[in-house]
């Protein structure tokens, strides 16, 4: 199980962008940093096959993600958006069941209960999503993703709207997934939080204006190094 990125150029930001090349093995966790508008969300959605690349390819186990069927892709990878849904009236267990179903896995009562226990959210199982705090709802959406995508999880600033406690819970949850052998992608501005969580194996600094679209660094994420790299990037407006 591995993800190959070959000569990838993103469709946004428009008109710029060097290429990205990398091979990410199972059990890796990549932290994606970059200033606003450098294409973090676009990168994640492109890796998940939801957006077309401008150039290049993303291969999952040798297969182009854009050519995988939607069900097949859903069973391999799942995306967590930065805002949890606050309007769905479904209960937590309904959401987990949907996640298992989307991934093509068993979704009977027992499977749902096991998935909720693994994520540590079983005590909320009968609450509707609309009754949860943002942090709780985000943990449910992460459990949904974990129940669905067995190979790779892509999280787009999942902690952006959470308080201190919520952030720590969400970040420590991600560490468990990595040790299960999944590939993790996390786009974030929470540099200290990610460093403290300590599970990252790579980090990627996106800077689309240069020859290379981003720089991959091997080894755990260090907030100070990332900050030093980020302050040298031009302002989003100057870049345009």
């Amino acid at each position, binding site marked *: 199980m591995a993800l190959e990125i070959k000569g990838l150029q993103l469709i946004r930001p428009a008109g710029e962008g060097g290429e990205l090349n990398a091979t990410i093995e199972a059990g890796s966790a990549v932290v994606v940093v970059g200033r606003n508008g450098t294409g973090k969300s676009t990168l994640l959605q492109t890796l998940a096959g939801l957006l077309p690349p401008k150039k290049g390819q993303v291969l999952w186990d040798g297969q182009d993600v854009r050519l995988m069927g939607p069900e097949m892709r*859903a069973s391999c990878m799942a995306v967590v958006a930065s805002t949890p849904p*606050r309007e769905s009236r479904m209960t937590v267990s309904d959401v987990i069941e*949907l996640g298992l179903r989307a991934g093509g896995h068993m979704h009977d009562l027992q499977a749902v209960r096991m998935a909720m226990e693994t994520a540590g959210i079983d005590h909320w199982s009968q609450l509707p999503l609309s009754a949860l705090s943002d942090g709780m709802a985000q943990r449910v959406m992460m459990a949904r993703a974990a129940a669905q995508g067995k190979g790779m999880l892509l999280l787009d600033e999942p902690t952006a709207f959470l308080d201190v406690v919520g952030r720590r819970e969400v970040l420590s949850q991600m560490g468990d997934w990595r040790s299960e052998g999944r590939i993790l992608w996390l786009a974030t501005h929470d540099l200290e939080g990610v460093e403290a969580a300590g599970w990252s194996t790579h980090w990627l600094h996106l800077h689309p204006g240069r020859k290379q679209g981003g720089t991959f660094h091997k080894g755990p994420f260090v907030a100070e190094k990332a900050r030093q790299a980020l302050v040298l990037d031009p302002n989003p407006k100057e870049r345009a």
Partner: protein
Amino acid sequence: MTSQKLTIVLLLVLMTSLFSVGLFSGPADLSMADQWLALRNGEGVAGTILWQLRLPRLCMAVLSGAALAMSGMLMQTYFRNPLAGPSVLGVTSGATLGVALVSLGGLAIGVPWGLSGSVSGALLGSWAVMLILGAVVGLFRSRTALLIFGLMVGYLTGAMVTVLQAGAEAGALQAFVVWGMGSFAQATWTGVMTLGMAFAIGAVWCFRWCHVLDMWTLGKLTALSMGVNERRLTWGLLGWTGALAGLVTAWCGPIAFLGLATPHLVRIMVPKSRHIDWVLPVVLTGSVLALMSDLIVRFVGIPLNAVLSIMGAPVVLWLLLRRSPGNSSSVKA
């Protein structure tokens, strides 16, 4: 028995009683025994009244209520907008323009499957609005924009209808104005059968897509990452809701509020649930409300759209005033 099953049983009982009241009461002076006999053999004046007037009218009310309520529910889910519905988003206006073009403007359009020209006009009109909605929905930056779109479609089609009215002959104009007040009284068995079939197929579609609709409520990005085929969902949903709203409009006139208000009443009765749990209560409630309004129309003597507006407008106002994270206007569509 769960509260959801109890709700369904209560709605069925209510629907059956309203249907019976509507069937066995009316201005004609008929004894209960005569009516019962006429219902079974269909003979005589009583037979004609029951089989040609009351039964098609009641069946049309049941089907229209169900179809509009289901359309409203599907549109509210798809657009993630609690104020969406066939009449609010201009679908009914499109159908009205279609009918006006045929009946007032004398436009001759192909008549498939033995339907009348105004039915085809209504269908084409509602589909045209749905087509535009489906094409531009990605461009709306807020929920308000979607509602303003519906409002503007209403103004535009209204203006075109006025132009057509100005040039129409008196007889056609009068028929059009009466039709515009909304009524189940013009129902024929052909209409009932056509709408019945369209509703049945639409309902099967709806049941089969329930889990996809559930995924859609989790947000677009999440739904796409769960393997939802956005294009198939969009065109299937807009196609069926457009067909149902168009057909109802063709036979019963532009009916207000039923599609918009019914899902909200059901949300109160069935508080937390998946689509599969609340399609049935929504459909049944739509039928019950339509039957109830039709009885008021028959016994109080005011037009259907007046009854529905008096009942529906307070519901919408209450929705606007109710403060909850679900309907604050700052949330993006």
